[in-house]
């Protein structure tokens, strides 16, 4: 869970220190206080969300909206569930083992899902040229074109001259 979340936050462009997972038992009040104080100090040093990462509010919002969509996409959920099952079967719970499997199985799906959600968001506001898409998502042409083609095959978008736009419902 933590590793998958970290990979998503990394791709969104957030500082990974903003997310921490830690343990303190019911009897460890002083440890708990230390964890909370430490974490608050870290966030205070980092500053407000987005500003510290050099993301402007518009991009940050777009990326987080895309991440939010990704997290409920059935393709991602299925891969996430399968990965959990695979980890259980392999019985390898070392951080390195988990990282390697997440990298191999989930990161490509996360990348593609994020980009697809970003494109859908941008297109939902009206026609967009491919250059504007490239600029706003910061992705490569080779990554974007197959997604656009897949979406237009599904009949969700269409190309008109230089711009892509959502397909009008008949």
């Amino acid at each position, binding site marked *: *869970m*933590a590793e*998958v*979340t970290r990979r*998503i*936050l990394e791709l*969104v462009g*957030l500082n990974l220190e*903003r*997310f*921490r*997972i*830690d*343990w*303190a*038992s*019911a*009897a*460890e*009040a*002083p*440890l*708990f*206080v230390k*964890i*909370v*104080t430490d*974490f*608050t100090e*870290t*966030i*205070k040093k*980092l*500053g*407000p*969300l987005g500003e510290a990462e050099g993301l402007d509010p518009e991009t940050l919002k777009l990326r*987080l*909206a895309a*991440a*939010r969509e990704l*997290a*409920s996409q059935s393709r991602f959920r299925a891969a*996430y569930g399968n990965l959990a099952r695979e980890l259980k079967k392999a019985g390898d719970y070392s951080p390195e083992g988990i990282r390697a499997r997440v990298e191999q199985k989930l990161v490509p799906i996360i990348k593609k899902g994020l980009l697809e959600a970003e494109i859908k968001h941008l297109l939902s506001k009206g026609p967009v040229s491919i250059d504007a898409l490239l600029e706003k998502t910061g992705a490569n042409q080779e990554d974007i074109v197959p997604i656009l083609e897949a979406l237009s095959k599904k009949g969700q978008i269409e190309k008109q001259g230089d711009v892509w736009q959502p397909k009008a419902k008949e």
Partner: protein
Amino acid sequence: MAFDPKILSFFCHWCCYAAADSAGVARYQYPPNNRVIRVMCTGRIDPRFIIEAFYAGADGVLVGG
């Protein structure tokens, strides 16, 4: 004015939440920036929750088991 971060915390009912309780009883001082959500177990937490927290404007997310 100094930056006052918003931190969302997910605490396990049996561990960190109880630790927070006993920290209160023992009158330990700690920063007031946390908004706590109690879950019955840390295993309940999904990447979706954390992304939603950042989307809603949290500056940091702490998961305590």
